[in-house]
């Protein structure tokens, strides 16, 4: 049976031991984020997630959203849970105090998000989208728009949605057709159809603030001619109260594989009134701001699902009695040994664990960098953090969701036939995880972003933010006898990554297909090395704390690190071979023969 306890000990390890999260309180704007407060927030969040959100996860999946006469009804219990969520102030956690937010670090927020995603991914999409819209408006909206919309969004009274995709275009937004016609009063009339709009319509909030990409009449062709507009479901009067319904309506909801309690809407805009966010024709820039945050959050969705699948799998592996250990009976008192005695089951569990804790550590690096890039007093430090976030965003998104899917799949596998039965709750995680590899830019698109944009930017400056600390770590640790079992495998895989990077940069310059052909493997290779770096660093900490009250925790850390180094990281060699094989086998294949 699926089960969830928030991994608070590991989160604190990442926050306090792997990174010195308490330092964040020294940054201007984060003075409140003292260790006590951080602890309290994690504690309270775990309660909410375990006790309010987790219990309605499976029922929400069974019931799904319902569409009737233009109205979307969320499953039973969602509205109540949302009210509890709002009352606890969870919609405001990372928002600007100027608009009623709590202004807490993103590092902390990312951990809260992980818990939400573990306990109820569908539910998490509603406040998640609001938060994405909030960030775009904060970054690019006029003061007037901010004052009018942000306080209620921060308070959770209103929610947000991102309206990008149209029936004929998703990845290639340059093709989009939705029109915006300027009006004399400075507003615009928006007309067009958007699809796959998560949280586009629902019954959780009294108003929904849509951010819509559309074209102005004089717009240049392609992505350079797209503008961003704010279109509320209900027009807002000057006094802040709700006015008449705007010309935006949900036409249908999709019936889909997973996240069934999250509404995925067709949104029709018919002369809807909207306001320009940012400059004309610069909508993609604003949208990327929102999308980058969203991509990190989607990565964390993968992490959250991997965590909950791991917990469910461990519980089952301990209690499921079946057969005997290969090396002889382990539990003679029982009719059979629990399946956890089997190497292959352990392989699955440790793989999940190594992924999960490795990703959590990496998410910590990225989310703390988000804090540094926004709050560090030194512009150079801000720039470096910004570079690192830009580089690791596609990796967090694609790697975490790919591993999340692998982990949920393994979780189901541990259950054998029972995993395939809905009642156990394990197959839901597989279905829920599957969308994370697809939305916010498919993982293939993430890989292209990595090799096509992030790698060449500023002659590789983004790469420096990762490669230099890793190289320095290896140089320092490989001479240390106790660290060699971690530093040497990391050095080997890192060497492969360096070679692969050089290869893709060189070959891709001459022929972009070469970079495209190896992009997905390259992203995986990069991700595995990044997790390897995380594991080596975690091992170093754990090595120093093998005695004491928490010896068990640190021993498990160290053993998982060993498993990662010996059983997972060697995949780097195979990935490197595939990358250097290039595009020929694929691109030379006769198209007619497919």
């Amino acid at each position, binding site marked *: 049976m699926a089960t969830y306890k928030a991994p608070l000990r590991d989160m604190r390890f990442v926050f306090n031991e792997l990174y010195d999260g308490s330092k964040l309180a020294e940054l201007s704007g984060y003075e409140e984020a003292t260790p006590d407060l951080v602890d309290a927030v994690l504690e309270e969040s775990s309660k909410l997630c375990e006790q309010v959100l987790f219990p309605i996860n499976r029922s929400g999946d069974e019931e799904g959203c319902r569409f009737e006469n233009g109205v979307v009804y969320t499953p039973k219990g969602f509205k109540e849970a949302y009210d509890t969520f709002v009352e606890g102030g969870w919609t405001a956690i990372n928002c600007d105090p100027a608009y009623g937010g709590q202004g807490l670090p993103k590092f902390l927020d990312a951990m809260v998000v992980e818990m939400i995603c573990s306990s109820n991914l569908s539910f998490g999409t509603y406040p998640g989208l609001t938060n994405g819209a909030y960030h775009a408006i904060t970054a690019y909206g006029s003061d007037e728009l901010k004052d009018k919309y942000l306080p209620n969004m921060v308070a959770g009274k209103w929610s947000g949605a991102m309206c990008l995709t149209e029936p004929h275009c998703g990845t290639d937004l340059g093709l989009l057709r939705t029109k915006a016609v300027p009006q004399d009063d400075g507003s615009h009339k928006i007309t067009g159809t958007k699809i796959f709009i998560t949280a586009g319509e629902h019954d959780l909030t009294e108003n929904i603030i849509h951010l819509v990409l559309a074209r102005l009449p004089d717009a240049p062709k392609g992505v350079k001619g797209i503008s961003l507009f704010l279109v509320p479901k209900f027009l807002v009067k000057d006094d802040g109260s709700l006015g008449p319904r705007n010309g935006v309506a949900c036409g249908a909801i999709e019936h889909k594989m997973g996240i069934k309690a999250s509404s995925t809407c067709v949104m029709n805009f018919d002369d809807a009134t909207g306001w320009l966010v940012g400059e004309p024709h610069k909508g993609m820039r604003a949208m990327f701001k929102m999308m980058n945050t969203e991509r990190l959050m989607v990565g964390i969705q993968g992490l959250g699902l991997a965590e909950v699948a791991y917990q469910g799998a461990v519980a089952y592996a301990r209690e499921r009695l079946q057969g005997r250990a290969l090396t002889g009976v382990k539990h003679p008192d029982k009719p059979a040994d629990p399946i956890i005695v089997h190497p292959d089951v352990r392989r699955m569990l440790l793989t999940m664990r190594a992924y999960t804790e490795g990703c959590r550590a990496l998410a910590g690096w990225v989310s703390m960098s988000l804090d540094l890039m926004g709050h560090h007093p030194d512009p150079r430090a801000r720039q470096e953090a910004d570079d690192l976030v830009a580089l690791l965003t596609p990796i967090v998104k694609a790697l975490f969701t790919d591993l999340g899917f692998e982990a949920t799949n393994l979780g189901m596998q541990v259950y054998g036939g029972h995993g395939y039965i809905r009642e156990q709750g394990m197959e839901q995680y597989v279905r829920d995880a599957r969308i994370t590899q697809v939305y916010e830019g498919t993982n293939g698109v993430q890989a292209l972003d990595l090799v096509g944009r992030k790698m060449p930017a500023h002659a*590789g*400056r983004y790469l420096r933010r990762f490669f230099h600390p890793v190289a320095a770590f290896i140089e320092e640790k490989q001479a240390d006898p106790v660290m060699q079992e971690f530093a040497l495998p990391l050095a080997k895989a890192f060497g492969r990554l360096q070679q692969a990077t050089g290869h893709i940069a060189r070959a891709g310059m001459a022929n972009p297909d070469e970079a495209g052909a190896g992009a997905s493997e390259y992203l995986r290779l990069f991700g595995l090395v990044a997790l390897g770096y995380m594991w080596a660093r975690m091992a170093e900490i754990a090595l120093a704390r093998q005695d004491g009250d928490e010896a068990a925790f640190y021993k498990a850390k160290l053993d998982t690190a060993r498993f990662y180094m010996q059983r997972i990281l060697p995949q780097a060699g195979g990935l490197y071979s595939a990358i250097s094989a290039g595009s020929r086998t694929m691109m030379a294949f006769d198209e007619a023969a497919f």
Partner: protein
Amino acid sequence: MAEIRKAAVIGAGVMGAGIAAHIANAGVPVVLLDIVPTGAPDRSALAKGAIEKMLKADPAPFMHQRAARLITPGNLEDDLHLLADADWIVEAVIERPDVKQGLYRKLEEVRRPGSIVSSNTSTIPLAMLTHGLPEGFARDFLVTHFFNPPRYMRLLEVVAGPSTRPEAVRTIREFCDVRLGKGVVDCKDRPGFIANRLGIVWMQSSVVGAIDLELTVEEADAVVGRPMGIPKTGVFGLFDLVGIDLMPHVHASMAAALPKTDAYHAIARDIPLFHRMIEQGYTGRKGKGGFYRLNRAGGGRVKEGIDLSTGEYRPTMAPSLDSLDEAKSNLRALVEHPDKGGRYAWWVLARTLSYAAGLVPEAADDIVAIDEAMRLGYNWRWGPFELIDKLGSGWFVERLRADGLPVPKLLEVADGRPFYRVEGGRPQYLSLEGDYRDVARPPGVLLLSDVKLRSKPLAKNASAALWDIGDGVVCLEFTSKMNSLDTETVAMIGRAVATVRKGGFKAMVIHNEGANFSVGANLGLVLFAANIAAWPEIEAIIKAGQDAMKALKYAPFPVVGAPSGMALGGGCEVLLHCDAVQAHAETYAGLVEVGVGVVPGWGGCKEMLARWFANPKRPAGPVPPVAKVFETISVATVAKSAAEAKDHLFLRPDDGITMNRDRLLADAKARALAMVPGYATPEPPQFNLPGPTAKAAMSLAVDVFRQMGKATEHDVVVADALADVLSGGDTDVTVTLGEDDLLALERQAFMRLLRTPATLDRMEHMLETGKPLRN
């Protein structure tokens, strides 16, 4: 043929003074005379003032300060006798026939019989200038039309009159070609000659088209710029440069001089905006601004462009035209695009190119002269007939007809055939008679591009190639973007040495016809490799480069470098390892590595030390040469000419200088062949360097600069590493170091610096802005 041993220039304005300076650059003494200004204490103040001004000007009219001493300033009242032994007198006075003729009459009294007189007029017909003057004068007279600035613009238009002695024309052609390095183009005695006649039509149609089709100045400049191969100043930028106030005069004179049937009149039209700009003082860069200006109001620096319809300034607007985005470098796709950018491109090209076609035989004998004139005089990348070939001459004519525009005879003669072709490995052009003729190359001109048309490379990779240029000489050509050097280049150097040896060749020349010989190592590759911490790989590349340089230096045959344009960093190091260099006069050599936060790593430090130690004029002791090299490299000294490069020992005192680029390869080849008999590889240098004490002295000097605010924080770090290499590291004078010891020091310093973030910042900044970062 007569020789020009002494010259004179009358008129010390911008053109006259510039011409005098350039004659001095060629090592020929020259007299510069102008009128006596009223009330001036010094009666030769104009000529003297012009020389003073030129010594401070940037870009410098002189290739070396020394050249100024070859100019004798004087005035037209006291110093006419100085002209008595001049072989060539250039007149560059005000564009008034009466003034010029008055001067000529004076010249007749003093000049040596058989001396040559030429006018630098750009607007007055030769026939008018010689009208009424004695036949003897007309026999010695021609027009030599230089372009501004005379040192740098390669075009020289020459017009001979019916009476001009062919011998005089040959003498001037030869002198201007070989000694002044000009591309001499024969023109007929027609208004505006070739380049300005076509240039004015092009500029006029560009403005009228932009106004009528409602393009912004930025859009117009973007359309005529890169796609048509026009320098990035664009056409409106060019107006600002030459001065908008000049235009009404130019047009008045062209309108008056050209027959009513000339196609010029169809596009000539008064542009009210010009008058308004001139009245208000917006005459271009010399005035308050032009089509563009830098608005410094309120302490800011806002680049503004003019609105062609309102005449008001507004911040520059980046052009956004589908035609440019879609056509990219395809000119035909651009002119066929339906948007205003495409229509504008056609508007301008239709008028300009068909006008060019009408200039044969009206102003020039053949298309080659016209293309050459526009390439050298207006810096077009392609001449008008090369542009027509890009569009297709048949397509071009059809489109002209469809638009109801006249079709000149030459285009009908072409009948859809290209204006240029390659036949039997030789470039040919289409004549007015309809047959193809070889493009003539004067004796002493060897172009690598011609070699490439008629042969296949001996070897080739992504960044370099080897060519057999005849008589047993191999040419190593760099072919990468901006001729930056990378691992492929290094590999090809190694291969070149083997090819020459095994292929029975006698010598090698290193030369290419790019704008720059080489801008140095490929910074992007180094920075990328550094960003991914590929330290051992980078060190291996440095080592491979050092090995390649040594292979060049110790090859068992002569290696002659033949650079033109920039030879920086690694490009300079290649030259330092050649047995000899035959440099184009416009060679800009320097070891500029510190600008990107590193030290020369391919033997540059080592070779410079060896040269300064071997310099017979150096003061005694081991410190002065070290200090001299430190001084040169630590501030990234770049020589502004080949002559200046000798001062810094980037070139040896006996290295050769060729004034005309087109003659560079032939000169270098001859030099290489001359070295073959009895060639011996050089002896490896040995060094006795002063070590830490000298380093401390250099560091102290840098600290002083730092305190004065002249050196930045990272300058100190880089200088320290450089001082470490140049002083020999941990050594003292009793220890003899070999070449490899110095190379190891270079590598260590390079790698150490590459690991500093400030060095990586410098590299990134240079790559992205083209300017050094002062961090």
